[in-house]
């Protein structure tokens, strides 16, 4: 027997909608196998991963966990929304992690260098600087791509390490808190430089989550209803047809990188001005990379990305609770996320192809050799 992929004449609307769920299901199965091999009860492990963090929905004493979910989901959604514009326009920005850090650094400039500047304007300035920092950092691979035809996957990825090490040097060096007992990190921000919490009574979720929702809706509208969105999609799918339409591919490269850089930068500054309250060497737990999974799990649709961001945030929280409850290594989270991306990309094949099982193995051996004339 042989399995064939047969191209569909039209893409399947059914599988466009279904493929993320199939991927989630397959990830759960593969995850269960992984936990069994690790010697844990798979049902228990999956409970801690995907159900335990959600108990806050019906149990008020666990409501803080929902806030933690929003805190983790906010940067994932913000970054992934920007990445969806990049990926739809065929710009493979892998460096959102670096743009996140760049935004955090530039946005922290005011509270670190002028800690005595107390005004309502500090926070808006920080957010704007954060966006500008992320956008400027993303402009580097965009410029190289447009000017020298450099592969943006490599340049954007390598700039992540530059940003990480530069941040490390800053918080251990010139920006280190002199009263920080030699721990790396800047001084704690003044209260004027801290993002307010949405419902301080029940938990510490901050306005970053609102930014994420607003960004998702705005970018969704841009992509699906405006000429700019059309331009992004045409150039991504069919560059030659895009040029025939009169769109400039160079401009769209910059547009996509600057937009996704700005959103990643906003995520970065929201993180340090939100839950962390100062800049340190480990401000990101890989949000910029996990957001790639979020973008694809959300089918590059900003509204889908909101749901996907919450699911991936769940794996972070679930990883922590599983580690505490049953002693699964926190590295299992990464394995989980990796499997999810793998299955999402694999299931996307079903949108354009259908699977056919073919019998008669004898015939196939022959025709396998043919066709190389």
């Amino acid at each position, binding site marked *: 027997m042989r399995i064939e992929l047969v191209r569909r004449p039209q893409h399947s609307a059914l599988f466009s909608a279904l493929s993320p769920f199939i991927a989630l299901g397959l990830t759960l199965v593969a995850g269960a196998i992984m936990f069994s091999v690790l010697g844990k009860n798979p049902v228990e492990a999956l409970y801690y991963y995907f159900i335990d963090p959600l108990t806050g929905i019906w149990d008020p004493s666990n409501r803080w966990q929902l806030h933690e979910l929003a805190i983790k989901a906010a940067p994932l959604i913000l970054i992934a929304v920007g990445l969806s514009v990049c990926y739809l326009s065929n710009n493979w920005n892998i460096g959102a992690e670096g743009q996140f850090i760049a935004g955090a650094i530039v946005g922290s400039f005011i509270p670190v260098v002028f800690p005595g500047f107390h005004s309502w304007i500090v926070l808006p300035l920080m957010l704007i600087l954060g966006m500008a920092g992320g956008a400027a950092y993303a402009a580097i691979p965009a410029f190289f791509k447009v000017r020298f035809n450099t592969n943006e996957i490599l340049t954007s990825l390598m700039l992540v390490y530059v940003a990480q090490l530069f941040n490390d040097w800053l918080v251990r060096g010139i920006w280190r808190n002199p009263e920080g007992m030699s721990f790396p990190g800047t001084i704690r921000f003044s209260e004027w430089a801290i993002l307010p919490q949405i419902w301080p009574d029940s938990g510490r979720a901050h306005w970053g989550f609102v930014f994420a929702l607003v960004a998702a809706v705005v970018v969704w509208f841009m992509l699906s*209803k405006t*000429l700019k969105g*059309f331009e992004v999609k045409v150039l991504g*799918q069919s560059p*030659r*047809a895009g040029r*025939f339409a*009169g769109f400039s591919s160079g401009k769209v490269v910059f547009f996509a990188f600057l937009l996704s850089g700005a959103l990643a930068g906003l995520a970065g500054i929201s993180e340090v001005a939100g839950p962390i309250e100062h800049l340190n060497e480990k401000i990101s737990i890989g949000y910029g990379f996990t957001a790639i999974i979020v973008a694809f799990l959300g089918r590059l649709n900003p509204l889908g990305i909101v749901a996907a961001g919450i699911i991936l945030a769940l794996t972070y929280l679930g990883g922590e609770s599983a580690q505490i409850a049953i002693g699964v290594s926190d590295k299992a989270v990464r394995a989980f996320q990796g499997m999810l991306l793998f299955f999402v990309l694999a299931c996307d094949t079903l949108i354009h192809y259908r699977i056919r099982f073919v019998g008669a193995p004898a015939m196939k051996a022959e025709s396998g*050799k043919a066709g190389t*004339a």
Partner: protein
Amino acid sequence: MSADTAAVNLLEVRGLTKIFGSLKACDAVDLTIRKGEIHALLGENGAGKSTLVKMLFGSLEPYSGEIRWNGQPVKIANPNAARKLGIGMVFQHFSLFEALSAAENIALSLDDQTPISTIAAKAQALSYSYGLPLDPYSLVGDLSVGERQRIEIIRCLLQTPDLIILDEPTSVLTPQEADKLFETLERLRAEGKSILYISHRLEEVKRMCDAATVMRHGKVVAHCDPRQETAASLARMMVGSEVHAVVRAPIEGIETAEALLEVRNLSRKPATPFSMPLKNISLNVRAGEVIGIAGVAGNGQGEFFEAVSGEAMQLEAGTVRIRGQDAGKLSITGRRLLGAAFVPEERLGHGAAPRMKLSENLFLSRYATDSKAFLGPGGVVKESAIDAATQRIVQEMDVRKSARDPEAAALSGGNLQKFIIGRELDRRPTVMVVNQPTWGVDAGAAAKIRQSLIELARSGSAVLVISQDLDELFEISDAISVMHNGELSRPLPRAEATLEKIGLLMGGAEPGHVDHGLESV
């Protein structure tokens, strides 16, 4: 089956059927090829010719039916098996490596370990004996399309086949090159070899072929002797209804009409190592006329189209003028806003985005010119207006499709082309530039497209048609220029242009000297 018929018939096909999903690409096809005959296989695009031939050559597996070779039932599992039986094939699209020599390309297709020098000697001997001179050590990249086809034919002949399948062999040749090919085919026939000749050019089928099988919608609709038929009767069999001849009303006073598209001394350096430089091209297209540009593929037509459309801009603003205004430094959008419309050769991926809906593909080329109708404040797309325009074009051009607004890739080539042409005609452009308007389009649709281009011109627009189909250019053009090696000849008025003159220019006779000494050549 008696021994008698087996001795005469080389190949007999009975009830051959191939099903793709719900489509019967070949439906109980019968075909008989006698020894020593040139047998034409006629049919429009999508009639099932290629599917049938692929089953004969072993690249597709029949669903049911029987193939008899010399009276014996055979199963042709793959192209190697076909070659072993004695079936050779020359494909329409060549499979040659440009960086290798002719002999090396031939060696690649042979299984045995014959040294290159032996192959070269054999190929050369064979090529001269069939009147297809070929230098086996020349690089394929340096050869013309006609010469490349020779390599394919020699490669096929080296395996001494009894049946040679030729798929649209003359579609890439100049008339003179085609004549040479016909001589070769006649020699092969005299040696007792059989040829299955796939074509939609009825004149050459009438001229050369001993028998014809006509297919339509996957079925054989007629077996006939093409010499007893007229081109019109053959066309009727292929299409299934009368094909309306294209009507071209004469134009008067064209000399004084305003030039709507002017190209002045256009030169262009090659953009890639494989593209053709353009040399000093000048051309006027006036209101009311259709100018045709003939030429063998790859002589700079694509580069010229890009330059005129503005996908590649010029350094001097005056190099291209549209409606009397300098357009050389304008982008394609700027040129469209001056009233020009463009239809490129490639439908999928250039003229249309394959995975986008028809309505989106309408928007693709018209968002700027129809911004009032299609765009609201803030660049918001008015989907209902675009949808209405899409359905209007579909109606007007009779585009057949499976859904209300399908993806472009889901349409057949001909229907997509009708839509793309209709998309531009719907704007009533003042200047229309079309590259290969009816390539791969069935006869009925082609006639409709050609007629609409003539009507657009007669309503006062300037129409420039680039095509490799000479019949088409003779049908619709008021004057024909020839592009060869990146240069454009002076346009010949339709009354002076003969197939022979144009053919010589396509083969590289010097541009500008068409008037002298033609008769002596």
